[in-house]
């Protein structure tokens, strides 16, 4: 179980259907061997408005390969059975889950071994009424805070979030560089005022220097777009090697092997 104050670990990503449904499971095996213990399974979507070019393209190609909610749940069943030590999180835009039926989707996800949810266009106001069900299912909504989130809303989001808080590191979409400056530290302090949950930082975590900068500051760093870039450019095997190198270079505690 992830705890506040534990040393930094990497969360990474799979877009279900990218580069193919067959390859997803092998890619996940690779990530686990590289030492990754938290993996987002992203349901591809036709209109991923919070994502930059890398994930937009991955979604586009994944949909052509049969990526869907059902395929994601199927992958989750297999991946959670193979890697019980790994936390799998369902990442999706709201509409595919809404069409599936939110409550049914959450029940099926929990049954498939999914432990958390990241849904960027699902506002806290809509999450709150679902909390009793989600808590009953042990399915953690991981809500996002952003640098411009006002105090009152920050508190509300921190109260509704479970497992961890997803800290969007900067303005914009996924896949671009972020600066880890003093303003960023103040931002983290501001969030910690409202929660004892671990913090997961995403948007712009791309290399070992980013991970080093985040060590001792937060518990989780999401290396997602970068990993998908590697997958797209050089295939899943090389992507896993790059991930292992990244984790070694950043001198993070070893989980792998």
């Amino acid at each position: 179980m992830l705890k506040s104050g534990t040393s930094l670990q990497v969360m990474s990503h799979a877009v279900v259907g990218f580069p193919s449904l067959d390859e997803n499971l092998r890619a996940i095996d690779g990530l686990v061997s590289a030492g990754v213990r938290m993996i987002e399974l992203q349901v591809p979507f036709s209109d991923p408005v919070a994502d930059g070019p890398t994930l937009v393209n991955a979604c586009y190609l994944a949909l052509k390969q049969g990526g869907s909610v059902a395929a994601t749940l199927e992958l989750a069943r297999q991946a959670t059975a193979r890697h019980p030590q790994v936390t799998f999180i369902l990442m999706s835009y709201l509409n595919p889950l809404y069409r599936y039926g939110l409550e049914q989707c959450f029940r099926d996800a929990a049954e498939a071994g999914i432990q958390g949810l990241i849904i960027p266009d699902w506002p806290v106001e809509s999450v709150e009424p679902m909390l009793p069900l989600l808590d009953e299912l042990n399915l953690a909504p991981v809500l996002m805070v952003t640098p411009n989130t006002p105090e009152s809303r920050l508190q509300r989001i921190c109260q509704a979030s479970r497992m961890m808080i997803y800290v969007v590191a900067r303005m914009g979409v996924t896949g671009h560089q972020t600066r880890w400056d003093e303003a960023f530290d103040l931002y983290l302090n501001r969030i910690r005022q409202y929660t004892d949950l671990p913090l997961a930082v995403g948007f712009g975590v791309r290399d070992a220097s980013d991970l080093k900068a985040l060590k001792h500051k937060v518990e989780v760093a999401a290396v997602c777009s970068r990993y998908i870039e590697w997958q797209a450019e050089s295939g899943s095997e090389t992507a896993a090697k790059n991930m292992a190198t990244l984790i070694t270079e950043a001198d993070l505690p070893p989980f792998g092997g």
Partner: protein
Amino acid sequence: MIRSQNGMFGDFGGRFVPEILLPALTELEQMFAQLREDADFWQEYVTLTRQFSGRPTPLTPCHRLSDHIGGARIWLKREDLNHSGAHKVNNVLGQGLLVKRLGKKRVIAETGAGQHGLATAIMAARLGLEATIYMGADDIERQYSNVFWMRQLGANVVPVSTGARTLKEAMDEALRDWAASCETTHYVLGTACGPAPFPELVTYFQSVIGIELQDQIQEAIGRLPDAIVACVGGGSNAMGAFSPFLDHHDVTLVGVEAGGRGMGDGDHSIRLKPDTAETGIAQGFKTLFLQNEDGQLGHTHSIAAGLDYVGVSPIIAHLSQSGRLTADSANDEEVLEAFKLLMKFEGIIPALESSHALAGGFRKAATMNNDQHLVINLSGRGDKDIFNVARAFPQPEWTAFLQRELERHTQEPSAQQEPSAEQEPSVQKSDTAHKENRHA
């Protein structure tokens, strides 16, 4: 005037956006809530439209056409006579007043037919703002004259080459830009869609159409019309024309969607009829979206680039489901027929978008009595469609002229450096192509 319940219209509307956009939307909502209660603000807006855009636009009786069709007397609300050539400028001028109050120096917009992009470029030039316009790469090819003028006006037009390369993708890209820039940039959303408060805010500014129309028809015939017809893409011209009449239940309101080339998936943009769109949540709001069983948004087609949107205004969706609005559609052929008829009988060149309203309006008028009155909202003029119409109604002299013009153009050395559509700096074009090859 219609008001939302916390951003909702019945089951539709709301605000489902990445957290990062919340503060900008809340700020806009609070400002709008205040200004709409301020009569001076409305006056400021109306004065601006009079001084800059030629309002009030006329209400034109169509004598010859009405006689030809038989049935109701047909009137046109002439939004085509706005500066920039369409109703889009109303909303843009209104949002320009908001931008000034917000103190932002940059605006972004999505555009389909280019009319909203053009209006935004005009507003930005007038107010000295930086403007970036997102437009589907396919729409750029369909409406190049608008792209040309946007660029002449100083706007940065960014072709969007993801997905179906039309309005939906342009809106996605505008939302992505806004996620990075919302502290300094205002998103001038062009239709009565998107996250709250946009559907209500755009309807508020566009209602200037219906408010004028109400006075004008009263003066002309001493009563309200029997029916008002408008085309429905996103729904802004329809909501503008309809909104003052919602409580007048004896006025029939007809929204005409794009029937395209048939009822197959991707061949039309009909969202209000049974077995077409389903309720969904995307692009920041809940409405009827054309989508598949997995909730992936679908593809659309229309001869008119301004109507092929995958969703529809949450207000229109609500009015349609509650029975206040009658949904109709016109296919590409009927649209061209109506286009021709209006030119021939009344000397008016309509936009292909507005020609959908004409087709539906003519059909409706034919079923009515000649003591009844039907108003069609002519949302825009057809200058921008010259290339599309030239293809639908070929004129050998035109083709010959284009060839001569091309020759003249290529003889000028400067012209050879102009980028082609495929070479323009584009969002994700090269990236997508590159990766598609890799995984083909």
